[in-house]
């Protein structure tokens, strides 16, 4: 499958990435290369096989829904670029 520049930019937008012009050409080439290689999965004899989503047996793990307080609130907030009144500060979202 051939990847177009528009498609690459669409994908980058979905991934919340802004590509520079020089990155675009490079990534187009790499992506094409890797996808050509990845196409080999289409030759694998998998017609009758189910999908696998994880390495271990797929089963639900249940536990009680209990609140556990994380003591060191300050340490969590300290990693944010901007904090005010014990909250993460963001630019205005709703106009």
């Amino acid at each position, binding site marked *: *499958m051939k*990847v177009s520049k528009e498609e*690459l930019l669409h*994908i*980058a937008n*979905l*991934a*919340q*990435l*802004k*590509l520079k012009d020089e*990155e675009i050409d490079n*990534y187009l080439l*790499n*992506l094409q*290369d*890797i*996808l050509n*290689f*990845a*196409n*080999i*999965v*289409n*030759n*694998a*004899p*998998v017609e009758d*096989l*189910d*999908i*696998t*989503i*994880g*390495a*271990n047996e797929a089963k639900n*793990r249940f*536990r009680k829904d209990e609140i556990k307080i*994380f003591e*060191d609130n300050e*340490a*969590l907030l*300290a*990693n*944010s*670029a*901007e904090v005010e009144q014990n909250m*993460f500060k*963001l*630019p*205005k*979202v709703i106009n």
Partner: protein
Amino acid sequence: MNIIDLTVHELQEKLKNNEVTITEIMDAYINRINEKEPEVEAFITTYLEEAKAKARDVEDKVKSGEITGDFAGIPIGIKDNICMKGTKTTCASKMLENFVAPYDASVIEKLKDENLISLGKLNMDEFAMGSSTENSYFKKTKNPWDLNKVPGGSSGGSAAAVAANLVPWALGSDTGGSIRQPASLCGVVGLKPTYGLVSRYGLVAFASSLDQIGPITKDVKDSAILLNLIAGKDEKDTTSEEVPKKDYVKALKNDVKGMKIGVPKEFFGEGINKEVKEQLEKAIQTYKELGAEIEEFSLDIAQYALATYYIIACAEASSNLGRFDGIRYGYRTPEYTNLKDIYKKSRSEGLGDEVKRRIILGTYVLSSGYYDAYYKKAQKVRTLVSNEFSKAFEKYDIILTPTAPTTAFKIGEKSSNPLEMYLADICTVSVNIAGLPGISIPCGVDNEGMPVGLQLIGNKFKEETILNAAYAFEQKVKFREMYKPEFKK
């Protein structure tokens, strides 16, 4: 006696017999780091002063009987994608350059409970994406056997630090070979446990269905000892499994008589370096001499597994790395106009080239129109790979392959061609795809004196089988007595 040459079990023995003290061990490692780290550049962060103070404290407490245990005061190095409370955990990324972990990973809690002392956080490919440690935002780690060559990756800092005696042992993480391949390139022992044996809580996620933490050590016994310390179910990781507690050291029986070892011929085909093959053939001969039953068989999955790996790992990474948006933690762009702008600019400026490449690939294979052709197909191939391994383990106790198709390559040699770099993982990824345990041990050197690694793959939760087989080989071949890193310039 040179302290830094000793394995951890040898250090423990000497401590027990009062031939060495905890502070002497710590001082020896700090001196070694001061001497060799400028050449090797294995660490992102060191805590040498803190480690020295901690060693004194632990020594006092051991003397007074306040703390006991075989691991009190033993130094260790930690890959920088494992959270240690109050210290930087960067994942070798500009994105997390100033991230201070607010909690301990479960494996770190276990080490702290036993009073091990961390010397620092070790370099890696950014977010564990790479096979040479060249993708670190901070520095390029050198291979201690030849400083012009890569140490492998992504746990290249961990493997190089152990090989160069900067730490007696280290923790790494392995998503597609990131413990085993650098161990192979640096001539040390690297073990990827079965998926679910070791808790991933506090390991910064790359591909959650493939990631496992594991030991990188000087010898097989240390590998078993460290696995004993870190294995076990953890309620904080729902993918960790309840398996009966085993003593992996007791499994080292130094006896492989009658053990059935399968050798998949496809893992010795095109693309595998001639000298690697020669060393592997010698290793197979050694196992025959030790009384193992060797049989060649067909396991034609390597190419499928590699393609499947890059589809699945990148898909999971594109989702996992969505959290780095400049809001709660990580790099935030200095200039922005709105929220969307923060997301896009912070990610684009804070993430490196290979990480963005994999996020794009992952987003592509998950996007409408390509999901069925790539992602769903890859999940089916994952079933195929697991089935093929299951069939093989009906006949064999162990599967033997090379760990990597080549020995260590020159810095810069493959960094411009991502696909070529991906091929470095051809022998290791299928083990992660199927969730199996795998160990790499050194088995010889090539014409340039660079180490060659041998990979032993076991059935699920059969770490004891591969550790025992690795141990028997090690006791016979005595690689560490014959070869040492030369820091060739």
